């Protein structure tokens, strides 16, 4: 403090401020300390981890107290603190005794909340004995997708227009009112009259690709019997309908982790595994073009922040009234499951033959104009 008074007396106050900022060293009642780095993330997806850290230099032991909202965050890991020096209270962690000075690391789990857009505050207080040196408080935005169905028709009529064009008289209105990306899957129930099938143009490719891949993977089970069970589970996984992936996320993760581990340690297996995919790809690529894939890609992006799984899969609708029963499942990009909506719609097809209606066509995003909507001259609608 004496140095500060000396500077104020002899120099312009601005130079004093620059001195303090440049030195970034604090001296408080005889304790020298320097805050080297503090990290608190400013945003995070709900349901994911929030890491934090504090790095400092000090000539005396400090304590650090971290305040957080306990209804939103839960501390999971604390690094470099002795068990005897850690105090956990409602909404705070107090670290008093560090294994080595100068570092505190933490990981919090965040909960999935009803509010898709929640701002919280994290406060970190540093001090020595009874003195507080620094208080750092920062806001954190915790967000997630929230898909709402704005309109759910009881019936959708399918009308044949001239030159073989098909049009619908109604749609399912959807809107993502959260900030995260909503990944949608429409899953038919067992008793649904209307089924969902792979897109016609791509069906041959998909069948060929999987046929070759599964054959090659079964050969792998013979060649590497020690991994036969795991490869068998992987085959079951790739046979599963994509819409069911969110349900089996933990098992899928375990299979993938185990496969990764084997590939890292067994080079022969890695090469054979990669070869199985390469064979399937090269053996079927002649059936598909860049055009098909780009169209599938564009149609799967229903709107910004809404992606549709298998957008070009088709509803197979016979003439007359046919009931579709199913569920609209939403996950985020980390596959955390969010709201599900039950769907029951009567497709009233006035077309004489089976209609193959791409899944993406029954959705309409509120407040957004679809690319092809309202275009009278549209040659393909």
């Amino acid at each position: 403090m004496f140095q500060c008074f000396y500077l104020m007396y002899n120099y312009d106050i601005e130079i004093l401020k620059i001195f303090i900022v440049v030195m970034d060293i604090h001296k408080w009642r005889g304790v020298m300390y320097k805050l080297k780095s503090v990290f608190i993330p400013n945003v995070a997806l709900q349901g994911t981890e929030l890491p934090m850290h504090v790095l400092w230099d000090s000539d005396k032991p400090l304590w650090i107290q971290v305040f957080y909202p306990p209804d939103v965050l839960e501390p999971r890991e604390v690094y470099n603190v002795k068990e005897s020096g850690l105090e956990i209270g409602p909404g705070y962690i107090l670290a008093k005794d560090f294994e080595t000075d100068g570092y505190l690391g933490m990981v919090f789990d965040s909960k999935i909340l009803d509010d898709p857009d929640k701002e919280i505050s994290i406060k970190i207080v540093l001090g020595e004995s009874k003195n507080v040196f620094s208080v750092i408080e920062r806001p954190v935005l915790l967000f997630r997708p929230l898909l709402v169905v704005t309109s759910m028709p009881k019936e959708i009529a399918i009308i044949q227009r001239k030159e073989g064009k098909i049009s619908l008289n109604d749609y399912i209105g959807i809107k993502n009112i959260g900030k995260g990306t909503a990944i949608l899957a429409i899953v038919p129930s067992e008793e649904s009259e209307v089924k969902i099938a792979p897109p016609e143009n791509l069906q041959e490719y998909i069948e060929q690709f999987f046929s070759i891949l599964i054959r090659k993977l079964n050969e792998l089970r013979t060649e590497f019997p020690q991994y036969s069970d795991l490869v068998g589970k992987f085959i079951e996984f790739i046979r599963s309908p994509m819409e069911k992936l969110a349900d089996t996320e933990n098992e899928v993760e375990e299979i993938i982790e185990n496969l990764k581990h084997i590939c890292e340690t067994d080079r022969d297996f890695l090469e054979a595994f990669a070869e199985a995919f390469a064979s399937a790809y090269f053996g079927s690529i002649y059936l598909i073009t860049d055009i098909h894939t780009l169209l599938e890609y564009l149609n799967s992006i229903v709107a910004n922040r809404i992606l549709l799984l298998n957008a070009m899969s088709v509803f197979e609708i016979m003439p007359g009234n046919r009931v579709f029963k199913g569920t609209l499942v939403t996950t985020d990009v980390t596959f955390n499951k969010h709201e599900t909506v039950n769907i029951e719609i009567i497709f009233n097809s006035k077309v004489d033959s089976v209609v193959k209606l791409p899944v993406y066509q029954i959705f309409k995003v509120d407040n957004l104009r679809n690319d092809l909507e309202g275009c009278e001259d549209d040659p393909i609608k």
Partner: protein
Amino acid sequence: MILLSKQFESVFSSLVGKFPDIVYHIYRAMKSSFEIQGQELMFLCPEGAQKLTIVGTYKKGLKDVTVKFPYPNIKSIKLRSIVPLVDVTNQAIRPLPRGGFELVGGKLVDGNIYGLEIEFRIENLRKLIDSIVHRKVLDEVPYEDRREYWIHAQLKNVSVFKKLFSNVVVEDLDFFVDVGVYHEVKTSIPPVFRRELEIITKWLGTTDREEKLRLSLAHLHLKRGSPSQRKHIMELLNKLQDIFLPRKFQKFIEVHKDFRYHDCIRGVDYFSAPFPTWPKYMTVVTRTNLTLENPAADGILVFKHKDFQTEIKQILNSE
């Protein structure tokens, strides 16, 4: 239950097995002839190896005696004089027939400082690194206008290393950031281009001659109406695919603070059809180092989405 560093120490110990004993044995053997000044452990993540460096001043005594280190998972060894900086490996290190090495002191100079570097292969590298480092990146950004992803790394345990080493480095830790690109691609593709894709797809999929004729006329109508679409569609698609190549995409990425850009690859799309498709995400690989002095690191990855969108529009001549 909150996990502390102590719990991670036991996980780490189970993964490294006898390595601490090996380090201790090498240290003791060196101590008989060197005044040890420091030892460093470096995890070389891309190489899947760990490097032990012991620096010490050579004392008289190891003239004609050899010290054996029979460890078969040694990848490489170097012995260097620090001042002057000279590699003396060939003079003082001899490989053993069944793996490992021996250090022969005959040609070393009394009072000189030497550094012995030994590289070991690591098994279970990923698990080992996961047991000592916590890694996390932002999964997606909530703001359209500000596409900044935070990246974070921190050591789970510092004291377990300080017992044995004066320095520990975890070098070139990889972090994978999924940068969303689908919105820019979709909004940059003009409706006319998309209609053309639809027409061509239907044309390819039908065998009905009348339908094919109708679609051909529709295609012609589209091409006439839009000067920018006179280029062949396949040429445009090829150019569009190029933008996702690493050497092109990296110019839309900036990485700041403790991390640096390393590479980028097309994102693995878990929720798309099982054919090679267009990426909804690009996975950017960034790297950082952690040490005992700096056990935590944070960085920011910025995606210059407006420049990316401009590039797509230029390719499709839609601006």
